[in-house]
């Protein structure tokens, strides 16, 4: 029944959007993945960023939240979406590195914060989310229905 789907495994620092029905899979630790879905055109895309803000030095890649969110949005607008038809689901942002080191960097939390701030600013509603915690996540995003299947991982991932 799920054979109609093409599959794409999404690596960190990349993003994927398609008008075809895809199932996009990814694994999130402290990284955050945002599923953007167009309810009018029934398609979507996913990003997977590792750090909240671009440091201005590396290549301006979707490794960084502020860039990953804008690039994903840009790609969907290019494919014909209206921003008012978009809705978001946000996953990841766990704190997997031991916080016992005292001065924890809270990457996960900062990643989530960028997502919330930027989506709010662009008036894209977050219709579902599973963020934070101490475990990694494995998610499958069905780009035609917007459905996301989500599972916690026992093993540590980053």
């Amino acid at each position, binding site marked *: 029944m*799920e054979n109609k*789907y093409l*599959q794409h*495994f999404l*690596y960190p*620092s*990349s*993003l*994927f959007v398609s008008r075809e029905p895809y*199932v996009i*899979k990814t*694994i999130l630790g402290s990284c955050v993945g945002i599923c953007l879905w167009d309810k009018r055109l029934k398609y979507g895309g996913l*990003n997977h960023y590792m750090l909240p*803000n*671009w*440091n*201005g*030095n*590396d*290549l*301006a*890649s*979707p*490794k960084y939240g*502020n860039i*990953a969110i804008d*690039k994903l949005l840009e790609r969907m607008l290019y494919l014909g979406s209206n921003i008012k038809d978009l809705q978001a*689901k946000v*996953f990841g942002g766990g704190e997997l590195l031991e916080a016992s080191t005292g001065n924890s960097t809270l990457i996960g939390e900062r990643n989530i914060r960028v997502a919330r701030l930027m989506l709010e600013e662009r008036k894209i509603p977050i219709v*579902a*989310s*599973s963020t934070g915690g101490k475990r*990694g996540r*494995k998610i*499958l995003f069905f780009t035609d229905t917007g*459905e*996301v*299947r*989500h*599972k916690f*991982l026992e*093993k540590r*991932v980053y």
Partner: protein
Amino acid sequence: MSNLSDRQLLRELRLRLEERKKLDDELTELSRDFQGVTKKLKESEALKSHFISNISNEIVNPFTSILGLSKAILSVEKNDWKKVVSMVALIHSEAFNLDFQLRNIFVAAKIEAGEIAPNITKVNIRSLVQTVIDSFNIISRKMGIDIETQFNIEHGFGKNFYFKTDSEKLKLVLSNLINNALKYSYKDSKVIVKLWVDDDVLNASVQDFGTGISEKNQKIIFERFKRLDSGINSINRGHGLGLSITKALLDVLEGNIEIQSQKGEGSTFTVNLPEAKNIIEGFSGEGNDIFFDEGDEIF
């Protein structure tokens, strides 16, 4: 309105003040973040326009020389045929450079678009390294630089050593390191390419005996578009993308890069690359695992 005792009132006020202060702090922090980002964006804008003028030189100049040289070849007299050889060599080196720069630019564009993913195969490391070094043959010979290979990997299949990684990315990483080493070397010296393995990690180092990089500059050479104006060879080529691409590619392959250098004595760049796993944790590499177990949450 209910009457509050002085104590209650004081406590309430203090609570509100504290809350206010917390919000203030958060606001200050956010605005500092924001200012930081703005500043970086401005800097990067300036760098980018610099980069564009740089890059158009990188592309236009080689083209101009290729056009000029080929035109000159067309009008060479028959008895002057020997001139042609040197002109063809020049055309080749210009075209080689152009090809190299364009490759880097396209990869950078791909990385920035988030379209880069590891493409893992079993790679014959010895032949890959040889191919990369061979591609620099003509350039290095022209500069009188000897590229020495030290292949310190004993085990493997016969003379070959196979390693699971992304061959195209590894090629580009090595090419960039060797290109840099040549660019910052003095004439008639050498570049040493060393390979060895620790457990599951492939190490490669590229050493030159050129200008070297001061400690201060070692920090900024990985930043995009940044170049140090210390190339010895009169035309200081390059657009400053090479090392930031190298770093980003190694990121994808979960490897890293270190630099050891002293001004005036040359530099050594060392890459550590862990062997890629067939299985990404939680997912089989190619497997058909979209059928989830019971108990998945659905959002």
